[in-house]
């Protein structure tokens, strides 16, 4: 947990530095007509840096006292989480090529087979029916345009 805590605190500090840096570029003083563009971000950045420093100090003090380090994730939790995260990322990436519905169908099918170990019949039925119904619901009924990808328009000609 300590490492993750430190990483996130440093992440916030980095954001704070970015804010301050950009605020200097924009100007953070009192301009001609009022506060300049960078005023708000400047103090936000400053605040984030201060908070990060305070958090880091607390982390060191606390872990010096406690001694041990609690785990960020319980035993064996990383694997299921990565099994969710990486295929999801894959689905989003594939969307760029074949569109969301086909990519989601692949994602559903992959996850059901690989992780859920569900039979082929159910897998194929579900990974076909769910994207189909959502396609009809969103693209046709609600008229909400969803990503087609590069080739999706050709693959789904209706």
């Amino acid at each position: 947990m300590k490492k993750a805590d430190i990483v996130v605190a440093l992440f916030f500090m980095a954001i704070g530095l970015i804010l301050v840096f950009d605020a200097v570029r924009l100007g953070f003083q009192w301009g001609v007509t009022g506060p300049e563009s960078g005023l708000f971000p400047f103090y936000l950045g400053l605040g984030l840096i201060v908070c990060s420093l305070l958090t880091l100090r607390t982390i060191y003090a606390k872990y010096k006292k406690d001694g041990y380090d609690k785990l960020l994730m319980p035993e064996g939790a990383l694997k299921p989480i990565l099994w969710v995260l990486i295929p999801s990322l894959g689905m989003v990436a594939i969307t760029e090529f074949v569109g969301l519905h086909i990519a989601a169908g692949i994602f559903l099918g992959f996850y059901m087979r690989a992780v859920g170990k569900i039979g082929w019949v159910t897998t194929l039925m579900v990974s076909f029916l769910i994207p189909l119904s959502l396609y009809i619901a969103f693209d046709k009924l609600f008229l909400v345009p969803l990503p087609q990808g590069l080739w999706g328009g050709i693959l789904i000609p209706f």
Partner: protein
Amino acid sequence: MLADLNNLAMGLGIALEPYNLMIACIGLILGIIVGVLPGLGGANGVAILIPVVVVMPATTGVILLSSIYWGALYGGSITSILFNIPGEPWSVATTFDGYPMARKGRAGFALVLSFMSHAVGAIVGVLILTFLAPLIAEIALKFGPAEIFSVMMLTFSAFVGLGGKSPVKTVAAILFGFSLAAVGMDIVSGQLRMTFGSVTLMGGFNFIVAVIGLFGLGEIFLTVEEGLKVEGIVGRVRMRDIVDGFKELLLYPKTLFMGAIIGCWMGVTPGGATPASFMAYGFAKESSKNSKEFGQGASAGIIAPEAAAHGAGTSATLPMITLGIPGSPTMAVIMGGLMIFGLTPGPMLFKEHADFVWGLIASCWVGNFIGFFMVMAFAPLFAAVLKVRFAILMPAIIYVCAIGAYAVNNRMIDVYYMLVFGVLGYLFKKLDYPIAPMVLALVLGNMAEQAMRQALIMGQGSPLIFFQPPIALPIMLVALIIFFWPVISGWKDKLLGKKKA
């Protein structure tokens, strides 16, 4: 007050129109399902449907969005009691005593207690909403930029001082939310901020995408941690449970009332249903004569957090329509939906769109009323949703979340952002960074900054403008007191402690 009742009657006329009624029921059903499912929470359930709602008239659209919220408030308890899995963040406290009670074979009884407490919380919340809203709107009309900014500061101070989490981390979360809001084009001067030449970043971060990622995917990661087994207790609500539940409720009037009041307080002074439920549980436990029973199936352990959660959810509407400050993260999303309709929440809404506002208030009455009967009758049906294999449910939920994230602005980058926010949401929850104020800061960021800049211009650059009587000064003072409450409370205890010794 008569005028309010008149207005309420007019609102009821709108809310009870067949089309709106049907939409409310659909919303409730969707909401209960969303409440039952982990990963599709009230906040991102509403967020995903916003693009759909745009095609409807504004009143109907808002009725749909808020009905989903009421449904989710009721629904989260079902899985808390039957599966020990909180369907919503505000149902976590229900698992403490609800699940043990169900394990002892009193699942139906627990469900009834929970739903009835929800109903009471809802009634108190809607009463406060109906009668206080016009009053506060009147006062809010006199607000200038300095007052608006001070109310926002009060909001965020409440999170810092009373939120229960590390103040430093809360402040960091709030500042992070503001920073996300600041990326993109500066409204006042038109300059590009923090975009570093990237056209993508020029669009900034949309709060709907953030909510879907932080609350939706983050929840999924948390749920998946424990493995994929979901086994539940079968619970049906029988007539005897209803009678027993009602009688039990009458034994705890103080707990019930206290829960509802805490809830409404946390809804009105933006906090939300989640902190409300925990606070009420804590209070009930501390002030109970048999606090050892808590955690084993104590009735008060269900009554208090449920009444609080629903009271908070309903009364969160109040600051949203009167001051334009959402009382809870889900309400923040609903407010975003309003803005998409072109309705700016705030005191002017009462003047210019009275029919809309009172239609919304009336639908709070109607929706919560119908929702209560829906859950009582169909709880096991909704619980059965979780019987679907998780390996099917989980990718389907992510699929729907991706649809929601994309539909906001038709940009693929938003879906990638959603994933990133999901990881961030998971990390933040694990490391105890509060997400609710972060989301609120993201939603309110531009408004807060504009108010601050206008106020500073009015005050010729002096920050003293924020401390001018008659309105800004007391609000800022209260904000400062609440902000430093942990410190002040520590001093108070030390002083009193010394006196005792």
